[in-house]
């Protein structure tokens, strides 16, 4: 089937390139994406991202138009559904404003510093993906907008999408939680566990090592305060199937993520952990403040503890 002409140098060239490729892969894995490879990535993305932004500027309206035309039959139902969602959201906002007002009063009573917990947000547009099989998202904001590697990314509903991996001046790549290499520390009611991505599935596997109660389908899974990658309390997904603790006290079930990276156009990058400068100024503040400390154990798990420190 394969034809080989005598005297050609195709095979030696192939072998040479394969060896170079394997060396590159080994080097990248060993350096964990830092050093020269990080510089190469940043350089390439810096060159390509302006072209991608220009193409996205032209392509997005066309795709939106095609989407609208293909969904014209369901447009009315969708509008009604969205109106209902808007009403519910407005009601939630009013309830939230009441809660915030009460929180403010309590913070003043106990002299808590609320500024230490505020998280900056950067809205970014998704301009593409590297190829059909790579689930990474490319966004149009980068380090010039304050985005840094490792920062958490949520969608406009507040659902966790993933985290920032590479950053250039004007663009960044985001790895969704459902395909990322690491698990996400989560909480279901009062039980702490870790949600891991699964192969060829949108659903994530939830492991709770010390379960003291069953979990029920539909229960909301949120980021845990034990997470070193995400701030606590952001919705990750919902339990997909009921599960009870086994004899050894562990529990395993599946979580259906709430965010849908494939259909997203806009994401929000959270400036978290908070700016170190703010943290330093908070430490210098003689007022009593809320502090959060995070420690990582040898087995890779992490613990976070929050305490109210009082001076004097």
């Amino acid at each position: 089937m394969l034809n080989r002409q005598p005297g050609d140098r195709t095979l030696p060239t192939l072998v040479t390139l394969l060896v170079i490729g394997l060396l590159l892969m080994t080097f990248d894995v060993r350096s964990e994406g830092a050093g020269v490879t990080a510089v190469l990535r940043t350089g390439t993305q810096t060159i390509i991202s302006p072209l991608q932004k220009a193409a996205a500027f032209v392509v997005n309206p066309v795709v939106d138009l095609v989407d609208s035309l293909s969904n014209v039959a369901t447009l009315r139902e969708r509008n009604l559904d969205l109106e209902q969602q808007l009403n519910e959201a407005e009601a939630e906002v009013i309830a939230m404003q009441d809660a915030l007002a009460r929180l403010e009063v309590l913070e003043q009573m106990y002299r808590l510093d609320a500024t230490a917990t505020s998280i900056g947000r950067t809205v970014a547009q998704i301009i593409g993906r590297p190829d059909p099989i790579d689930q990474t998202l490319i966004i149009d904001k980068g380090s010039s907008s304050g985005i840094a590697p490792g920062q958490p990314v949520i969608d406009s509903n507040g659902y966790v999408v993933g985290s920032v991996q590479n950053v250039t001046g004007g663009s960044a790549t985001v790895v969704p939680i459902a395909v990322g290499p690491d698990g996400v520390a989560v909480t279901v009611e009062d039980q702490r566990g870790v949600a891991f991505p699964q192969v060829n599935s949108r659903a994530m596997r939830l492991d709770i090592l010390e379960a003291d109660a069953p979990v029920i389908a539909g229960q909301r899974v949120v980021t845990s305060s034990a997470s070193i990658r995400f701030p606590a309390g952001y919705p990750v997904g919902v339990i997909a199937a009921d599960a009870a603790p086994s004899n050894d006290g562990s529990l395993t079930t599946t979580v259906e993520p709430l965010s849908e990276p494939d259909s997203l156009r806009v994401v929000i990058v959270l400036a978290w952990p908070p700016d170190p400068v703010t943290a330093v100024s908070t430490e210098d503040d003689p007022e009593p403040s809320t502090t959060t400390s995070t420690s990582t154990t040898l087995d890779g798990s992490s613990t976070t503890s929050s305490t109210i420190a009082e001076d004097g």
Partner: protein
Amino acid sequence: MRVRTVLIVGVLLLLALVVQTTLFSQTAVFVPDLVMLVVILLALTRLRPELVLGVAFLSGLVVDLLGSSVLGLRAIVFTVVGYLALRTRERADLGRIATGLWAGLLTLAGMVLLVLVGTLFGQTVLLGEGVIDLLLLVPLANAVLAWIFGPVVVRLVDRDATAFRYA
């Protein structure tokens, strides 16, 4: 390789890269891998085989640099696909449909290799939802595009209006 040919190949790959990462990243069913397709079609041109392999390697490297998977993964896959394309290019000379089928089969080989090597190197970002569907959808899309645009790309790179006219 003349400067003009270098420019044509460069622009073709850049165009494929930009269109793939923007337009075709938003489509659900028609999901071609344009950069891999251009590499496959370059095997049909009069470019020296070693150069085709070099272009395949560099193209894969650029796609690697844009994504989050390990550097060199697509460079290896595209080089192997380019080699297979060079060794079997006579099969594509039979007609437009043969060109499409040939490109589709090579894309399938490339996708399988990408998933296999990616799995070996723990690249979870390549193994997300619908990866099995993509193993079929991407080769199908590439086959259709090769059937339509294959001869045009060869004529453009070779600057030969008579190339791939199929007697």
